[in-house]
């Protein structure tokens, strides 16, 4: 056995605190026939050095002490393959994230690097060659969420020729962007650019659009997911409804207008908004007399198409997909509980920015005339408050919403355009305007549209003689300020879509404490999740504007297309295997396996033994521990390897 040890300096990232020469001196260990340090191992010359050493020194196994294997394991597996080794004959040791970056003392870091490297050597000594197999994939993609990100991803994938199922839980696709009036920094009309795409998605022959639907359960794994989709009963037969809205007109029951973010009212049966896709009515039972009092039936009577069916039930269908794109977006943070000083939702003229979008929008409840909710008056003094439920640790929301500064500037501009005599005031802490043309845009709001920006967080809002008194500070002048406002608009922070965490658990992907879904690597794998075959698009991953959402959606689409383009997938060979001759047939392993990957086979002598189905096994190793005679073993993480690694440290 001939082992080679390569210690990476990572420029100064490692070399500054780890004496890499000393670490490479693990070269004196048993079976080590070559050791060297490399400045940047992952670079081309770095990889070449490894390949050359393998060839020249006839190495059969390799240990690379460098960054996290989560970063470059695949890179180096490929490199050693090029040199003719089995890819699994390489093992990585993490002396950067777990060593040089967390220790400042050279002796400590070097000592630890030496230990970790020797442990790697001990481990690789027990490594066996592993071989992966190929499985066919399902050529169909599931897109969850029909906002601008989901629509973009679906269109890109469908245009590449792959069939797509789009599952949207609301009654229409379009998401939050459909609610916006104009969009920064170009001020083009949101629905003018979005509606054509919504229609295109609906008409695309490769896209199967399912509204009022949610994902129930997910089984299987990359290449072959099996998903139960629940289509919720809306009492309207989608195929029959023409969207004529006569039912909505005649319905006697009022209901909150969700599309208009709660400004204005709707009916128990309604078409969500005039540009909705699909343009179909839906009935909300919790507001409908037919269901509350057991009597009404007006909509059924007036519907000429016979589209109403009060007996309709949820439908669950099961479909198979090769990849999944999650694009469940965001919701404005519900600020009311956390900001009693801003009235906690009790003052009608303190509204959120999203509600204000609806007041600005020509298709909104006021027909695009800005009128304040309390008395329908046109406001003259409008105060915008940024970071409500953002950058505020005291309410558990320390992060930046990343779009607030921009849409406040937009809304200040639009306010002036709607009401030339108006004056806008903007309370901000910092103006975050990092995108292309963004800074110029916020400057324009001030310079050309006369919005007065005050740097400070507002302390309190209270009503006084039909106005709202806003008590704040301008920290730049050091003065307390008080503004008499007609309307106050709060830039409520970004929150993940309701139930995002629950969906993530169904999909077995991770999410952060705010239920934003986690990407696999913040820079290098920003659309992948830690679960193969599941990708992220848009604001579900974190606060994002439209350009960012769309870009990520196209990236996710590209990933999904790339994954499925080969028609088959290589499975990981790091799966469990049973030594059948010694298996007693107790099936403790089968009891614990989370993936039903263990089946019973009859041995030649007639007794039952366990066998692992490679394509189902995920390699968790739970069975490995459960087996009484210890005859089922996880390849790549065998007992022998783990013991060797442990004992090496304690030597």
């Amino acid at each position, binding site marked *: 056995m001939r082992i080679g040890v390569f210690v990476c300096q990572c420029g100064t990232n490692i070399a500054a605190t780890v004496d890499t020469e000393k670490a490479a001196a693990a070269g004196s260990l048993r079976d080590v026939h070559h050791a060297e340090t490399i400045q940047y191992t992952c670079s081309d010359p770095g990889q070449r050095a490894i390949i050359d050493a393998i060839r020249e020194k006839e190495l059969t196994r390799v240990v690379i002490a460098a960054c996290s294997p989560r970063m470059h394991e695949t890179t180096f597996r490929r490199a050693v393959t090029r040199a003719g080794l089995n890819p699994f004959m390489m093992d990585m040791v993490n002396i950067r994230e777990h060593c040089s970056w967390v220790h400042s003392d050279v002796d400590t870091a070097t000592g630890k690097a030496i230990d970790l490297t020797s442990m790697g050597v001990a481990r690789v000594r027990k490594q066996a060659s592993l071989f992966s197999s190929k499985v066919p994939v399902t050529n169909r993609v599931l897109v969850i969420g029909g906002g601008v990100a989901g629509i973009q991803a679906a269109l890109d994938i469908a245009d590449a020729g792959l069939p797509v199922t789009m599952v949207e839980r609301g009654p229409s696709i379009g998401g939050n962007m459909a609610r916006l009036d104009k969009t920064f920094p170009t001020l083009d009309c949101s629905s003018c650019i979005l509606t054509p795409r919504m229609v295109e998605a609906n008409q695309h022959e490769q896209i199967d659009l399912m509204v009022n639907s949610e994902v129930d359960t997910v089984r299987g794994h990359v290449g072959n997911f099996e998903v139960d989709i629940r289509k919720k009963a809306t009492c309207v037969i989608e195929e029959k409804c023409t969207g004529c809205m006569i039912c909505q007109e005649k319905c006697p029951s009022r209901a909150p207008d969700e599309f208009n973010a709660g400004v204005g009212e709707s009916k128990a049966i309604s078409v969500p908004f005039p540009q909705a896709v699909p343009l179909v009515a839906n009935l909300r039972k919790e507001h409908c007399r037919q269901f509350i009092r057991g009597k009404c039936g007006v909509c059924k009577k007036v519907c000429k198409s016979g589209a109403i069916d009060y007996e309709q039930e949820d439908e669950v269908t099961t479909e198979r997909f090769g990849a999944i794109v999650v694009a469940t977006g965001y919701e404005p943070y519900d600020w009311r509980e956390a900001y009693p000083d801003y009235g906690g939702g009790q003052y009608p003229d303190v509204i959120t920015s999203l509600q204000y979008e609806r007041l600005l929008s020509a298709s909104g409840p006021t027909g695009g005339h800005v009128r304040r909710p309390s008395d329908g008056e046109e406001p003259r003094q409008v105060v915008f408050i940024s970071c409500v439920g953002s950058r505020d640790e005291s309410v558990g929301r320390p992060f930046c919403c990343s779009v607030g500064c921009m849409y406040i500037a937009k809304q200040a501009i639009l306010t002036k355009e709607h009401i030339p005599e108006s004056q806008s005031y903007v309370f901000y802490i910092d103006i975050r305007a990092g995108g292309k043309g963004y800074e110029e845009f916020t400057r324009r709001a001030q310079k050309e549209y006369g919005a007065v920006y005050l740097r400070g*967080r507002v302390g309190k809002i209270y009503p006084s003689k039909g106005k709202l008194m806003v008590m704040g500070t301008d920290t730049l002048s050091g003065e*307390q300020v008080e503004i008499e406002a007609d309307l106050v608009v709060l830039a409520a922070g970004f929150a993940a879509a309701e139930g995002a965490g629950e969906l993530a658990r169904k999909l077995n992907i991770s999410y952060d404490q705010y239920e934003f879904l986690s990407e696999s690597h913040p820079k290098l794998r920003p659309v992948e999740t830690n679960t193969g075959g599941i990708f992220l698009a848009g604001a579900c991953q974190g606060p994002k504007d439209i350009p960012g959402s769309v870009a990520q959606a196209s990236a996710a689409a590209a990933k999904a297309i790339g994954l499925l383009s080969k028609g088959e997938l290589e499975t990981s060979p790091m799966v469990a295997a049973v030594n059948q001759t010694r298996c007693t047939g107790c099936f403790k392993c089968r009891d614990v396996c989370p993936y039903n990957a263990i089946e019973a086979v009859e041995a030649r002598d007639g007794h039952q033994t366990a066998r692992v189905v490679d394509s189902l096994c995920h390699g968790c190793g739970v069975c490995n521990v459960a087996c009484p005679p210890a005859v089922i073993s996880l390849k790549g993480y065998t007992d022998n390897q783990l013991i060797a690694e442990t004992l090496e440290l304690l030597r």
Partner: protein
Amino acid sequence: MAIRVSTTIADGAALVADIERRSGERVSACYQCGRCTSTCAAAFAFDYPPHRIMRLLQLGQVDKVLNSRTAQLCFDCMTCSSRCPMTIDVANVIEQVKMIADEHGIRVNKEKSIRLFRRAFLKNVRRHGRLHEARLLTWINLRSFKPFNDLAVVPLILRRKKVHIVPPKIRNRREIHRIFHEVNGNGGGNGNSDRHGGGK
């Protein structure tokens, strides 16, 4: 620190560290949002509003802070603390500034009356074990050379039997004296007033 400081008492950084230790707060946690100032009912009378006190401390400008009227005028109502988005106990920070100013014998002339009030109050408690409000009121007014301050309300107070004429006294005054003696003997300001019981 690259910023020039004109501290007269001691090196600014050391004092800031002391303020941080006593209060259990990190001044660097403040991101100058100004919400403390927005909520402060007294800031109009301060020379530096609370967010600027935090800023000056961040810059190590301790002399300005220690000599500020703010430190004397802040009445520790904790409105700012309860509103700070960074959960900084701003009032506590200012409180520690005030105590350090006291320990250094800094007298902010304009705000003499507040010191007078505190002294009078404690003297009163020390002597009787309880507070005699009428006496406190008149004593302060005389000392601060504003004899007519509040005098207009006095007859009203008396008419409504709001004030005892005879000072209230407690029986076991020796215990009270022992308490005063003990805290005086220990030299007072030992930084034990961290109301979070030892910082965060």
